[in-house]
């Protein structure tokens, strides 16, 4: 196919009589265009397999806020107090979110409507992430060009276009902050490196704006504001300080900080929070460095300067520590947050903050998922590092540091593989590009040598030396060809792996579950939407729904009902209260539910379908989080010899707690699998222990067709006589 296509193209090129440079440009632009399109369409598997819909949990909140933004305008959005979540507390939405994503989508929507494209806002939201992924490939190209050369840039664009580590967060429908944030992150880094390379105020200003966009889009901006100072520090230590660096960093930091303060959720954190102090410290260090440099220039006496240096450095360090200490003590500078600690110490969250540890994407990364997400990049990464070290420059130092730090963070938390992906792709691209280039140069020079030797033969000495070379390395050409084929094989393996992973693993919306039926046909479980739509249509508009926080965003977005807790886990006590209600006996739980005005309770139950991420499997986290605030709840009460069971041997408290009762209510009458007793739980593979469940204060209001979602109504209190 390619060979057939190549012939007319080369003919065309000849007929147009393009120069080599122009040919190269044409090929480069067309490759970039193809990569741009490829990055977009490879993310559309989910739309083709399922439908154009929003995925998972957080995207539903983003979608709901975007809808609000397009309907009510920016000022209403900015001042939005949401009564529908965190009942009875509510949530100041405008002040507690990163608005970048919503504003971007709303802007795209406005532009499309201005151009009279009558699309629905949902379509815009679904396709935002793929669109930004396409843009990321362009940024990767320019970044690679800046660090190494255009070849590396092209390879980087191709690698990042299909890399599963990035696709996992940017398929169509995963309308989450990361979708635009990775673009913003890489763009900021690119602009900063460009600024450092040129020493231009304009690039530096651009990188400040890139940083502003990143701050508005994702909490991961903290990575930028810590990596860049670290990079500057490394350059200072290695004696690579230059005026360019001074200009780039100062402009970027000061303007970026001022711009970032415009985001309400970030506010004054840049001057008040411990996580941002490193940047400020490096900023002052930079000034001291510049001052010393000036003094050295003026003094031109080494001994005097050495003495001066000692005094200044001591003073600067002392002033810095005193200022920091005072700030910390007076509480002006807030200490590091738990999430930040858990990054530096992977075991921290497990011991101190169960709510962070309970999220699956906050778990430490397994080796297999590195292999799954990076494939050959995992081997190319060290090779690329080698090439970077061989040709050290300001830019390669940056990419090496970015690669190493983000790799560490990727090891700490699964979701941070995403941040590492661009760096891994860029460094691997350098490896691929440099290797292939070396090999092709080898092949070409040989051909030329033979040709020139045979035709011209101008200088006999040169010709003879070349002939010698030819004879001395007879296997070089064959070796190069073999290596090229090897590289081609690896890269094609990478492409097929990426496509397979995208289509099989990362394109499921997780709202709609698909399984293979007995005859190989595709069975769809659409129970979530069934339940949410039932809530939306058939409950009073002001009904309050209690569920575990995982489903909060979905209930508010799809069910349009008030929830007690949701995925924005800002209030641990409130979540613990719900956890406590779920893990108490019914008559204790009803008190809690009445105090929270709960009308409906929603549980997710996979016992009929064998759906394993249901509330029974999440239950221990409810106990832990509830027990973390209310010591009445003790984890050992729910375990038997440290083992979590739901069958006859389960702990009595487990068999009678609210969550167990709600999940298994009347399940004992149900035949789930042929040849198994009634009440056989397919998700856990056991027969349940308590089949005779009576509910006193709640009644079944709705159960979906596959029992995945069960909704109970809280009965009004009985009359007193």
């Amino acid at each position, binding site marked *: 196919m390619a060979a057939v296509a190549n012939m007319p193209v080369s003919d065309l090129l000849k007929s147009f009589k393009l120069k080599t440079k122009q040919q190269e440009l044409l090929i480069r632009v067309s490759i970039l265009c193809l990569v741009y399109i490829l990055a977009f369409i490879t993310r559309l598997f989910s739309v083709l397999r399922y439908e154009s819909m929003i995925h998972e949990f957080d995207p539903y909140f983003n979608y709901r806020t975007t809808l609000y933004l397009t309907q009510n305008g920016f000022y209403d959005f900015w001042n939005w107090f949401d009564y529908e979540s965190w009942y009875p507390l509510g949530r100041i939405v405008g002040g507690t979110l990163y608005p970048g994503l919503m504003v971007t989508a709303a802007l795209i929507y406005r532009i499309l409507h201005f151009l009279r494209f*009558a699309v629905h806002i949902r379509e815009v939201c679904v396709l935002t992430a793929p669109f930004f992924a396409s843009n990321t490939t362009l940024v990767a190209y320019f970044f690679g060009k800046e660090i190494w050369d255009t070849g590396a840039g092209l390879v980087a664009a191709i690698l990042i276009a299909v890399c599963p580590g990035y696709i996992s967060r940017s398929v169509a429908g995963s309308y989450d902050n990361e979708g635009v944030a990775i673009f913003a992150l890489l763009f900021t880094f690119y602009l900063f490196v460009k600024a450092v390379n*040129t020493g231009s105020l304009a690039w530096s200003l651009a990188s400040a704006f890139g940083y502003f966009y990143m701050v508005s889009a994702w909490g991961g901006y903290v990575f930028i504001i810590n990596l860049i100072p670290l990079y500057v520090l490394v350059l200072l230590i290695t004696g690579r300080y230059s005026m360019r660096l001074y*200009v780039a960093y100062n402009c970027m930091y000061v303007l970026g900080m001022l711009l970032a303060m415009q985001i309400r959720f970030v506010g004054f954190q840049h001057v008040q929070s411990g996580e941002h102090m490193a940047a400020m410290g490096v900023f002052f260090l930079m000034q001291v460095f510049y001052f010393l440099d000036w003094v050295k220039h003026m003094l031109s006496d080494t001994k005097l300067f050495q003495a001066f240096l000692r005094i200044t450095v001591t003073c600067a360090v002392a002033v810095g520590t005193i200022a920091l200490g005072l700030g910390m003590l007076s509480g002006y500078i807030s200490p590091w947050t738990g999430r930040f600690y858990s990054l530096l110490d992977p075991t921290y969250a497990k011991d101190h903050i169960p709510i962070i540890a309970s999220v699956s994407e906050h778990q430490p990364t397994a080796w297999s998922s590195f292999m799954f997400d990076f494939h050959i990049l995992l081997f190319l990464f060290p090779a690329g590092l080698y090439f970077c070290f061989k040709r050290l420059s300001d830019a390669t130092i940056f990419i090496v540091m970015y690669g190493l730090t983000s790799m560490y963070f990727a090891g700490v938390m699964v979701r941070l593989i995403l941040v590492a992906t661009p760096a891994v792709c860029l460094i691997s691209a350098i490896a691929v590009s440099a290797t292939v280039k070396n090999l092709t140069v080898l092949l070409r020079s040989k051909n030329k040598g033979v040709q020139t030797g045979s035709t011209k033969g101008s200088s006999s000495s040169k010709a003879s030396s070349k002939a010698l070379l030819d004879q001395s390395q007879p296997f070089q050409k064959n070796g190069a060809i073999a290596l090229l084929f090897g590289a081609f094989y690896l890269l094609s393996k990478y492409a097929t792996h990426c496509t397979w992973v995208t289509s099989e693993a990362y394109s499921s919306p997780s709202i709609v579950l698909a399984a293979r039926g007995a005859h190989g046909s595709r069975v769809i479980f659409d129970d979530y*939407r069934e339940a949410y*739509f039932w809530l939306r*249509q*058939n409950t009073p508009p002001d009904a309050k729904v209690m569920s575990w926080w995982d489903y909060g965003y979905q209930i508010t977005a799809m069910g349009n009902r008030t929830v007690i807790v949701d995925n924005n886990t800002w209030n641990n006590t409130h979540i613990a209260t719900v956890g406590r209600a779920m893990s108490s006996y019914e008559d204790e739980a009803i008190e809690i539910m009445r105090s929270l005005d709960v009308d409906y309770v929603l549980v997710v139950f996979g016992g009929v379908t064998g759906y394993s991420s249901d509330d029974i499997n999440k239950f221990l986290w409810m106990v832990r989080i509830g027990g973390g605030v209310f010591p009445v709840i003790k984890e050992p009460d729910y375990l038997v010899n440290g083992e979590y069971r739901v069958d006859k041997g389960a702990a009595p408290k487990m068999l009678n707690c609210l969550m167990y009762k709600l999940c298994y209510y009347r399940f004992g009458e149900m035949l789930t699998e042929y040849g198994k007793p009634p009440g056989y739980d397919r998700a856990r593979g056991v027969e349940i222990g308590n089949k005779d469940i009576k509910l006193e204060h709640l009644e079944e209001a709705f159960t979906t067709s596959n029992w995945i979602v069960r909704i109970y109504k809280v009965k009004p209190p009985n009359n007193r006589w």
Partner: protein
Amino acid sequence: MEVPIRATGILGFTFFSLLFFICTSSPLHNLFISNAERRIDATSHIVKVYLTLKVENAGSTPTSEVLLAFPPTRVDHLATVEALVTKGKRKKTTLVRLDVKPTELPDAPNGAKYFTIYLANPLNSGESTTLEVLYLFTHSLEPFPAEIGQSESQLVHYRDSALILSPYHIKQQTTFIKTPSSKVESFTRVEPTNRAGTEIKYGPYEDRPPYSFSPILIHFENNSPFPVVEELVREVEISHWGNLQVTEQYTLVHGGARHKGVFSRVDFQSRPTLSGASSLRHLLARLPPRVHSVYYRDEIGNISSSHLRTDSRKSELEIEPRYPLFGGWKATFVIGYGLPLQDFLFESSDDRRYLNFTFGCPLLETVVDKLTVKVVLPEGSKDPSAVVPFPVDQHLETKYSYLDVVGRTVVVVEKKNLVPVQNSHFQVYYTFKPIFMLAEPLMLASAFFLFFVACVAYLHIDLSIPMLSVRGVNIRYGCAKIKPISKCVSDMKETKLSDPADPPAMNDSSNRSLGG
């Protein structure tokens, strides 16, 4: 009019049992009905009444109008009235549809409402004719008890009169009421009354004067679901590129006895006949043939439980709501489909085009409380007018769709209380010049052309700010000028040469220009 009497008439039917002898207008007492048979079908939630009237003219003048009377409280629920007359001799009888129009009479007793049937041939004195009348009532079965649990069956009240309300003298009349099952809790007796199986027979009654009324109440089991579409918006968009896109937005509610208490999935799944017998599990929509790209979705996404069967004459779309609808439960959804334009768009004799499309709701056995049909005409069409076979509200709107500049004209037709029988066709006439079809492709083409021209221009214009070095100080002056390409290239070469190969070093603090 007689306000107090009318008010009491609304309060209860009993007052209708009073006999009225009003013999003012001449055609009324000229006619009389020698035999009347009424069959009321109450098996579904739409009550169908088949009335066979043998009308005789006893007066001296020929008459061509026959009046039907209805109590004012029931007129609101009256969806349609049709009259047919049999023609020809035995065996070769054909039914001919007659015009029926609502009529106001100045001295109607108790505010009774009338419909006039216009006979095709005037009825001469002494002649007789047989009329077949069909009318449908919606919302006429009242659930009692109004709230039922999941395992209970749905019981309803049906109220009517044992005698046919008529402005004419009726010599002999019989009424049959068909119930869906033999489970009848109670019924009013107006002797002679018989009940056999699923049928209750009232009559025959002899020689009843005009406006005789005798209220009856039947309490019986009706487990059929009561699908009521509270609001339906049908949007038909015409594209002269060959497609007709139909989008229908439904607000569906189960209008039967309200569900109360528990909904148990175990019972619903294991005993489907006993539990939730009156629940609405699926609906059937009858769509035109050659339908394509059908979708069925709601606000939160696609609903996967639907099946489409197509053949050359019709398409049937079987849809299930996300959850079974119990009494009082609601569901909103959207059905959309495309149709080939040539099946529905025609050219009329006066060089205009017209769309010929079904008016009502494609769902079978469904009552529509409010129907809005919007016909979106292509951009640039003029003089729209709609022709609908029954009285409706009409107005015009403008809609902006893909790549519209002036907007598309939308003909909006609204109608209340509609039943599937009324799925007759309506027409929308308009004029359209085919040249307008090219507007949007041309617009797109020119946009792309301008984009490429801009790209080419950008590549050929040097927008950089050249630097002039005057006495060692860099001065910039800004101007954009077009240079020949060769000059640009040579400039580039020069600048390349003059650029230092390495970025400036740390001590290089002279006033270098940044980013030349």
